């Protein structure tokens, strides 16, 4: 009974709020809205300028997000979906649930950006992270890694964004020879975890020499924990990128507000929040700069990223190749 | 009057037929070889085994519509007549109120019933602390309080010694007199029948025969009884 009252209470409260100020509903992944993610600060900053109520709904991770949008279809409550990446944008565009954006100007993304529907808000590079005190001579590419005795933990591409990123990375860098790389990596892979957290937990427990993560993971340890023992190994094949994007749903009843939010997310105010909450690079460097931690983080010299259509077409095939080689 | 009207009972492959009346207040022994279906007959009266065919009538009313607890019947099983987690008084009290909502008056009745069966001072014990004979007495005390017009006994005293058993049979006779109940008692001991029952039903070969005065039956035993008695 109590829960019914609670729920009823929520509904009443929600509808009262609705009557007074416009509400912008943003559907995103769970870690974005968590207490340690960008959500709370973004909400505060945007509400200060929009005179509206910004409501984040967190739901699983990036890939689960698109599934949810498809489930809700045109009846979705959401006005904005935030947190898809380039592996998903082609499929997301094909649902025809999204509307073109009106954001103008360039983005400081290594491979450049132009997309009529999706607006990028941050990006990063996948990389293998290691402990400098235990590993003094990290591999410089996949071939060296495969030839070494190092143990790595990776994530499953079928359930994890970095896991899929790695498969696309190898695919983009090696094309037809990708399966040989996987064959070589097979004895280095300690285990494959369902998500990023399990893998990173195993790595910090000392189980593996390296873990698949982002080049900015060591930055977190430096900035938040004053711990500079972690580093990302830079590979000379280049590093695959993850560009996180947002899009406006065509069925939104808050069209102007949604456009305002998209513009806000690439403005200085929001871009300054993202680096030390989402631990990714902003798409427009904030006026105050990124801070010493980010400035000291080495960036890959070569960036890799497949065009969304290509990524969509290659994805199933590349994952199947990964699976069949490793399952042998 | 309790009437078996063309009754056919079935348990697995086994069938038993009965088609006879017995008067209220009668004392009936049910004897027969082991596995012949003596208990089956009682279970049908108590409502645990619906007849495949025929009706069981009490005072002209078909019992089939009544669930076991609503029947004019008290049954004493071979064992498990008492709940081990309830006290003796509570076990007896269930005969007055299945919800154990007992008044002071009820408690007095329980005490009197315990006196009647020779177990004063035992009210607060639990069954685990009683002997077999004492447990049977508690069950009888409950039957006394329920005062249903039919009392079914399914060999509840078979585990007791001869002297104790005779005592219990006398006690049953007393309880039956107090309540005026029709008693049907299953036994494998012809001595029980002769001591206790004015009529006896012989159950053999799938048939529960019409009750016969006990003395006549044993004076002139039919072949099935002779086989059973081994004489």
């Amino acid at each position, binding site marked *: 009974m109590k829960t019914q009252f609670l729920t009823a209470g929520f509904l009443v409260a929600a509808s009262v709020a609705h009557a007074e100020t416009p509400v912008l509903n943003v559907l995103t992944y769970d870690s974005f809205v968590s207490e340690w993610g960008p959500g709370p600060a973004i909400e505060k900053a945007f509400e200060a300028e929009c005179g509206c109520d910004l409501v984040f709904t967190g739901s699983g991770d990036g890939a689960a997000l698109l599934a949810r949008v498809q489930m809700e279809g045109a009846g979705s409550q959401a006005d904005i979906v935030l947190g898809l990446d380039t592996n998903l944008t082609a499929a997301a565009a094909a649902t025809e649930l999204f509307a073109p954006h009106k954001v103008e100007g360039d983005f400081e993304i290594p491979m450049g950006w132009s997309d009529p529907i999706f607006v990028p808000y941050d990006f990063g590079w996948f990389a293998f992270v290691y402990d400098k005190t235990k590993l003094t001579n990290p591999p410089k590419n996949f071939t060296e890694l495969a030839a070494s005795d190092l143990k790595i933990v990776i994530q499953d591409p079928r359930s994890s964004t970095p896991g899929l990123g790695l498969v696309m990375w190898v695919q983009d860098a090696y094309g037809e020879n990708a399966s040989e790389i996987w064959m070589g990596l097979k004895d280095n892979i300690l285990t*494959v975890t369902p998500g990023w957290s399990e893998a990173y937990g195993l790595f910090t427990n000392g189980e593996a020499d390296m873990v698949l993560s982002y080049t900015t993971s060591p930055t977190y340890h430096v900035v938040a924990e004053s711990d500079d023992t972690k580093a990302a190994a830079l590979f000379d094949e280049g590093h695959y990128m993850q560009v996180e994007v947002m899009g406006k749903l065509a069925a939104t009843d808050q069209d102007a507000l949604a456009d305002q939010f998209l513009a806000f997310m690439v403005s200085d105010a929001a871009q300054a929040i993202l680096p030390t909450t989402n631990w990714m690079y902003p798409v427009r460097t904030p006026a105050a700069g990124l801070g010493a931690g980010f400035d000291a983080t080495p960036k890959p010299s070569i960036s890799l990223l497949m065009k969304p259509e290509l990524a969509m077409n290659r994805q199933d095939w590349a994952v199947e190749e990964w699976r069949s080689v490793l399952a042998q | 009057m309790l009437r078996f009207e063309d009754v056919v009972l079935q348990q697995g492959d086994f069938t038993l037929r009965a088609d006879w009346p017995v008067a209220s207040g009668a004392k009936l022994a049910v004897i027969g070889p082991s596995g012949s279906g003596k208990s089956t007959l009682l279970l049908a009266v108590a409502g645990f085994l619906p007849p495949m065919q025929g009706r069981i009538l009490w005072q002209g009313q078909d019992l089939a519509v009544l669930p076991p607890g609503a029947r004019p019947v008290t049954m004493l099983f071979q064992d498990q007549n008492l709940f081990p987690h309830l006290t003796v008084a509570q076990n007896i009290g269930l005969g007055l109120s299945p919800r154990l909502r007992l008044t002071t008056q009820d408690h007095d009745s329980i005490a009197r019933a315990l006196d009647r069966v020779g177990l004063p001072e035992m009210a607060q014990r639990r069954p685990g602390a009683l002997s077999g004979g004492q447990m049977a007495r508690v069950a009888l005390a409950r039957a006394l309080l329920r005062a249903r017009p039919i009392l079914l006994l399914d060999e509840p005293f078979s585990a007791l010694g001869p002297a104790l058993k005779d005592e219990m049979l006398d006690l049953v006779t007393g309880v039956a007199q107090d309540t005026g109940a029709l008693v049907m008692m299953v036994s494998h001991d012809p001595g029980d029948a002769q001591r206790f029952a004015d009529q006896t039903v012989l159950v053999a070969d799938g048939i529960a025969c019409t009750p016969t005065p006990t003395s006549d039956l044993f004076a002139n035993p039919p072949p099935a009884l002779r086989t059973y008695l081994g004489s």
Partner: protein
Amino acid sequence: MTRAAAPAYLAGAILLVVVLGPLPLLLTRGQVTLTGADFAALRFTVMQAGLSALLSCLLAVPVARALHRRRFVGRGAMIALMGAPFLLPVIVAALGIVSIWGARGWLARMGLPLPSLYGLQGVLLAHVFLNLPLATRMLLQGWQAIPAERLRLGESLGFDPWARFRHLEWPMLRSVLPGAMLAVFLVCLTSFAIVLTLGGGPKATTLELAIYQAVRFDFDLPRAAALALLQFGVCGLAVAASARLVRDAGFGAGLDRSLAPPAPAGWRRGLDGFLLLLTAAFLLLPLLAITLNGLLGLPAMPAQVWPALARSLIVAVTCGILSTVMALALALAVAKGARGLEYMAMLPLAASSMVLGIGLFLAVQPFVPPAALGLPVTLLVNIVLALPYAFRLILPEARALQADYGRLAEALDMRGLARLRLLTLPHLRRPLGLSAGLAAALAMGDLGAIALFASDGGATLPLLIQRLMGAYRMEAAAGAALVLMVANFGLFWLFDRWGRHAAV
């Protein structure tokens, strides 16, 4: 099957709708295609679940026997401890296992030459760690259900250990073991994170992962539903196999006089002691590792842990009670002969929480924004998912109760609430307490299908732990995991204690 069975049929109907209802909703959204990889996943799923069940239950036999017949200081604590691993959130349990058995774990650092943890062996190790206690508890109940009269009879007949095993323990095992194996098999059937984390690679792919993949990457709902059906099929076969194996022990009732004969002395005593010590170490060491890691993380823990804990406790207690009430209604009806309900009560074990969540989402979404239903849905899903465990624990004793006292209760016209109060509750208090504790703790550790319904009502503790880990805060997460473990354990202990302080 009239008035008394009505709550049971209501419970059955809720189960059917919640567990099977999603399938048509998903299946009708397109064409179904299954690939060779799916059948490889099916094979691996069945194999790992089968081996896990076999190992857990075989090991549980000597452990449960030793626990049953030995009296020692800390025995009660050890029985209570038996609940702990099963109740751990999966990710916490996995990290605990790794801390002990991993490549840089305690045992490896002591110089023990261990084979790699990652692979089928790791999956089995973790599943035994999680399920051995469950199996042991179920078998222990079986031993306790052998009336002391029968044990004394055996003793007086001069039974040697073999004769005792053959005439008393084996019949009991025949009646309890298939159910325990079934329960462990079904738990492992839908195991996901453990298999993936410790499995070593895509060879260790389960059906549940295939379902996850179908939904998340391909948004192929019909395929997800087809895989879920496959999972139900396996579950059905397992239930049928177990039903064929079960033999009723037929001990009859005892008078609950607690005068069990003394346990054998000599080398058997030593062996039992060694076995119990080994089991305790096997179960305790990972818990100890979690505790130590957690203690280090306590200072780093954010204040949000406490409101999250409160929310989790509310969910857990509500689920514990409601799940047990539903399970009791079903078990009593099944004990009276409604066999169909027995299978219904086991259904949720095979349910994919992913499919369950999506089904509920699709069902409510046209009418109410799913976020508004976060709490009720969390409750509903957890009640349903915990129900089979509660049911399994209650059923054997409900059956015994019906066999021993069913007729007497009916003859005395004890019905409805009076019967519940005077007969059922006093007799079933022990399994009721155990199952309420189990259901509560399971609900507390669960994350399951809830992600889709993320509500504005704030995070539960498991979700908070996941968020902490996702935000690099591994230490704080370890601290919060310790809080979760302690709360979980405390809750289970409270319910279980209520049950074990039974009048009977």
